[in-house]
């Protein structure tokens, strides 16, 4: 179980907790704060707008491309700086990022997600922000996304990877 557990997590979880430290639950409040700030940016930049997503996929506006592009450039520079200067976490642990390995899931799953993205106008992050704005019906979309994740887990061994 132990090793299998490790493999499922490292191969499939994007959010593997690399820290070996044990913390009380309230240490997670800092991620709540980062989430709040991130959610505010998503709304203020209209990233969670169905209309903006349609505009992007019809090549009618630079807005979304500008956001994704400048976010990636900022991320590349940040990670380069972290590696270059060996920056540690606030707890003094070295920062480690697990590499991603290629499998065909990135092609098939990517296509499937893209189809859903253009229908709902939401990726998993914006879904939560959309509900926060008061569009309570998006809860249904979220539950359906959870169901989709569950069905993937259930069918996983039978799918090409």
């Amino acid at each position, binding site marked *: 179980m132990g090793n299998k557990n490790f493999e499922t997590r490292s191969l499939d979880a994007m959010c593997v907790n690399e820290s070996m430290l044990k913390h009380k639950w309230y240490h*997670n409040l800092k991620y709540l704060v980062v989430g709040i700030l991130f959610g505010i940016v*998503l709304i203020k930049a209209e990233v969670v707008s169905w209309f903006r997503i*349609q505009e992007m996929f019809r090549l009618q506006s630079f807005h979304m491309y*500008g956001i994704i592009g*400048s976010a990636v450039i900022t991320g590349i520079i940040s990670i380069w700086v972290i590696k270059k200067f060996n920056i540690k976490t606030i707890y003094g642990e070295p920062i480690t990022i697990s590499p*991603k390995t290629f499998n065909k899931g990135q092609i098939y799953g990517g296509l499937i997600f893209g189809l*859903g993205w253009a229908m709902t106008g939401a990726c998993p992050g914006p*879904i939560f922000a959309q509900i926060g704005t008061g569009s309570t019906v998006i809860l249904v979309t979220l539950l359906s996304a*959870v169901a989709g*994740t569950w069905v993937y887990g259930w069918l996983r061994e039978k799918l090409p990877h």
Partner: protein
Amino acid sequence: MMTFIKQPWPWYVAGPLIGLTVPILLILGNKSFGISSSLRHICASCMPANIPFFQYDWKKEVWNLFFALGIFLGGAIAINLLSIPSVIQINPKLVQELAGYGITNYNNLVPEDIISWQSLFTMKGFILMIIGGFLVGFGTRYAGGCTSGHAIMGLSNLQRPSLIATIFFMIGGFIMANLILPFVLSL
């Protein structure tokens, strides 16, 4: 300052702020930016059903659920405290096209003409919300991440698999928006 905050933010302000989430999460506790995993943790905590994919110590990943809850709260704060009621400015060509499908309400971030409780039980609403949501959940997990995990975190770390995933996210989106959605919207 407040006037600036209350307007919609331009891409060159929002993009770098979104990008900064990557180093902030790493420095706060070695966390890789990504949100779709929260859906997996929900499955693992509520309905693991003896499926190996959901048999892991989800409590170790609970930070991700706090992060998702924060995004929800951030949405509520932004819309209630940091916004002036305004109509989204989009390309007039799109406005014209959508009007042809009866979509004219721009008061919300989602089009209330088609995404609302009233339309949930119409064919169009069912396809957009239920099927669309399912594809988002199934696809992100199959691909091993979403726009945050692959397109932002993965590309920031120069990962080739993430580039492939991002390209196919876009291909899927182009196919849906241009070839399939016009048919769905005219149902």
